[in-house]
C-alpha cells in the first residue's frame, strides 16, 4: 500500500505522461517543442524516486521538487521544481491537509515560481492559470465553500487562464522571441499547470 500523497503525485505524473505529445505540440507552436517530453521525463523519475511509504506530504513534495530540478532539463525544471519545493516547505511534517494548508501550499508555489521566473500575471506563463485559480480558491474558502467546491472553481479559473493565454503575447521565455506571433496559441506551461490542479481535485474527490 502506498501513501495518499504518493498516489496523488503518481496521478499527476500519469496525467503529464499521458499528455506528453499534446504538451510538446503546444510548445512546438511557440517554444522549443520540449515541454511535454521534459515534464514526462521528470515525472517518470518522480514516480520512481519518491518514497511510496513516507506519509510526510512536505517531504514528498520536496523530493518531487529536487527530482524535477535534476531531470526536466528545460525551464520547467527550475520553475516546477521550485514550486514543489516551496510548497513542500510549508507542508513539512504534515500527513493530512486542511483547506488552509492547501491554500498555503498554493501561495508558496506561486511565490516560488515568481521568484524563479520573475514573471507577473499577463505574460503568457503558467501563472496565468495558477494565480486566478488561487484567487478563486481563496475567495470560495473565505465564503464557506468546501475544499472540493473551491478546487472545482479554481480549475474553472485555471482553464479560463489557458484561454486568456491565447489572447496575449509572450514576454517571458522562448516564446517571447515570437512577440505578437505568439498570440492565438495557448501556453504549454499554463496547460500543464491546469492538468496538475485538475488531477489534485479529482484525486481529493476520490
Amino acid at each position: 500500500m502506498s501513501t495518499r500523497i504518493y498516489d496523488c503525485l503518481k496521478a499527476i505524473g500519469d496525467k503529464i505522461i499521458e499528455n506528453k505529445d499534446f504538451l510538446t505540440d503546444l510548445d512546438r507552436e511557440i517554444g522549443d517543442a520540449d515541454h511535454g517530453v521534459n515534464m514526462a521525463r521528470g515525472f517518470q523519475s518522480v514516480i520512481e524516486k519518491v518514497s511510496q511509504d513516507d506519509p510526510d506530504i512536505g517531504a514528498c513534495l520536496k523530493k518531487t521538487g529536487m527530482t524535477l530540478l535534476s531531470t526536466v532539463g528545460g525551464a520547467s525544471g527550475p520553475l516546477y521544481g521550485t514550486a514543489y519545493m516551496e510548497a513542500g516547505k510549508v507542508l513539512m511534517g504534515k500527513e493530512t491537509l486542511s483547506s488552509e494548508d492547501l491554500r498555503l501550499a498554493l501561495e508558496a508555489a506561486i511565490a516560488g515560481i515568481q521568484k524563479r521566473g520573475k514573471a507577473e500575471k499577463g505574460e503568457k506563463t503558467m501563472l496565468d492559470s495558477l494565480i486566478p485559480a488561487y484567487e478563486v480558491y481563496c475567495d470560495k474558502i473565505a465564503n464557506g465553500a468546501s475544499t472540493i467546491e473551491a478546487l472545482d472553481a479554481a480549475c474553472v479559473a485555471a482553464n479560463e487562464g489557458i484561454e486568456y493565454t491565447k489572447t496575449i503575447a509572450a514576454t517571458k521565455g522562448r516564446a517571447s522571441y515570437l512577440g505578437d506571433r505568439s498570440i492565438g496559441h495557448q501556453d504549454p506551461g499554463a496547460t500543464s499547470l491546469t492538468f496538475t490542479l485538475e488531477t489534485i481535485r479529482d484525486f481529493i474527490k476520490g
Partner: protein
Amino acid sequence: MVGLVIVSHSYKIAEGIKDLTDQVAPTHKGIIAAGGMEDKSIGTDAVRISEAIKQAESGDGVVVLADLGSGIMSAETAIELLDGEDINARLVDAPIVEGSIAAAVTAACGSKLEEVITAAEQTKAVKKIN
C-alpha cells in the same frame, strides 16, 4: 582561489569552455564544467550545478557563469540549494565564453571574489570588432 562553474545547456559547450580556461589557467583546480544533464543530453540540472559549486569551492567563493534562459534559472536554484553551506557563490551576468576566460585568468592570479566578478562582467562591454 576563487572557483568557477561553467553552466550550459550543452555538455560539450561547458566542457569546451573548460578546455579554453585550462589553457589560460592550467594550475587552477577549481574550474568545473556543469553542462547538460547527467546523461549528457541537452538541458540544465540545478542539483548537478550545486554539486559543481561545492567542488569548485576552496574557501574563497565561487563564480558561476550560465548560458541562457533556464541556465540562469537553474544556476540561481543551484545557489539556493547551497542553503546551510558556507559558500559565497555568485552568478555573474556576462557572456559565457569571454566571461569564463576572464574569470579563470583573474582567479588563477589569486584575485578576490569581487575582482573576479568584475573582470567577468567587464567582458560584456568589450567590442570584438573595431
